[in-house]
């Protein structure tokens, strides 16, 4: 199953190199940055904070708002800064994927605002955004029932592969972004573009679960390092 078959030399179940950073923005309550191959995404979290206009607040729970946005220079052709329908849809979908993990009832009448900014797009931007947003939420000190971890799988050239590049995404027969709470074994996002038989779906989904577990380990390691560093800094003072 794991011979080299892909344009960039990866095995079908091999992730691209992933780098994650936490707490990189000064003004945001929480922030994170992820590079997954050539895909680069910056996320900031503000909140829990007061809702404006106030009537949007809910008496028993926090609301979550999300903007997924691609910088004009992030794509091959320059993208107009105006939000496209795709960006509107993904904003909604990412919001749902993350809101399910947040303990919203702790912060009634507030909003938690998540800004996902794609700086460079080379496939898997919504998944990278979710993975990073999960870290930014942790950085903001917002309690979650589990981390949310995401990765796309797909069918390319007849094979089920993981973590598609932009090129593979364009050529593929099917593309399936998945977001999970890996410890709770719950799906918080799943979409499918393209066609899969039920068997192919199962194979793809299992591959996504496996990939999310790996990425989840990376998230945890990144968080651990970050808190260690903070602790050191506190002790040094």
């Amino acid at each position, binding site marked *: 199953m794991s011979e080299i078959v892909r344009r960039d030399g990866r095995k079908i179940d091999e992730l691209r190199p992933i780098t994650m950073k936490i707490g990189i923005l000064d003004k945001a309550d929480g922030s994170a940055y992820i590079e997954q191959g050539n895909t680069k995404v910056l996320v900031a979290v503000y909140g829990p904070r007061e809702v404006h206009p106030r*009537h*949007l607040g*809910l008496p028993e729970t926090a609301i979550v708002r999300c903007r997924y946005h691609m910088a004009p220079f992030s794509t091959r052709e320059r993208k107009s800064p105006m939000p496209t*329908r*795709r960006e*509107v*849809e993904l*904003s*909604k*979908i990412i919001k*749902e994927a993350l809101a*399910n993990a947040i303990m919203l009832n702790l912060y009634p009448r507030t909003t938690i605002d998540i800004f996902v900014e794609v700086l460079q797009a080379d496939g898997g931007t919504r998944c990278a955004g979710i993975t990073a947003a999960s870290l930014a939420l942790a950085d903001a000190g917002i309690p979650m029932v589990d981390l949310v971890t995401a990765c796309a799988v797909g069918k390319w050239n007849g094979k089920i592969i993981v973590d598609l590049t932009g090129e593979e995404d364009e050529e593929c027969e*099917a593309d*399936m972004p998945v977001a999970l*709470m890996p410890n*709770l*074994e*719950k*799906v*918080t*996002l*799943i*979409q*499918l*573009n*393209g*066609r*899969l*038989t*039920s068997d192919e*779906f*199962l194979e793809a*989904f299992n591959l996504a*679960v496996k990939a999310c577990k790996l990425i989840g380990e990376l998230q945890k390691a990144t968080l651990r390092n970050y808190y260690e560093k903070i602790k050191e800094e506190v002790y040094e003072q």
Partner: protein
Amino acid sequence: MSSRLIVPELTKRRVRELASQRRRIDKRGLTEFRPVTIERSVIPQADGSALVHIGHTKAIAGVKIDLGQPYPDMPNAGVLAVNVELMPLASPTFEPGPPDERAVEVARIVDRTIREGKMLDLEELVIMPGREVYLIFVDAYLVDHDGNMIDACVLASIAALLDATMREAIVSEGKAKLIDEREPLPIRHYPLTATICRISDTLIVDPTLEEEETAEARITIGFDEEDRICMMQHSIGTLRYGELYQAINISREAVSRLREDLRKVFPDAR
């Protein structure tokens, strides 16, 4: 968007109680659609049209076909443009104005079901590569919202495309023109969707408004006539892995029954 609750808490509790006993408020089976009716050619002025009822939920779709330029990066494909509006007359919670995120999501689902389900052979819609192709506009309007707007808009759009004919094009002196002869669209596949909700750990198909507002999770799954999954959109809540597999099986069967309804109106559809 109004934030006022349109389903009272009491009703929600009743829906949950029943679901925990694997029953539904309107006495339907868990995997059963409400009565479905499909009326074709309701807007003769359009190139294709259909009005569908799924219970009280109603959607109307119209297809308009014109000539125009292809996308620069797809010179060898016709253009498909899908638009969905949640008309303010359909629900006290809908307001006039540009499509909100719910309408955009439904439009994207309809678009992907048609496009990724390979319903149309877009390459057959090219008249002069890179210069002149057919433009297929699908406009789906939700007219009465009693739950499950996604399947209603998908079904109306698919039916309107099956109903549609396009005028033949002739090329003279390097310019394309539509003449009065009509031909059917190059239909290749017959995708349809079914939407599943989870309420009190029970999966049900085709939620009413009351059920949808009560649901803990919602997922829409599309299948083509060969039972390949051709669209998935998980749009509310979380699903356990096993529930996901179960949802696929339930929706596959629901879609094949829905396909029967479609075939009554479009006997050639598979």
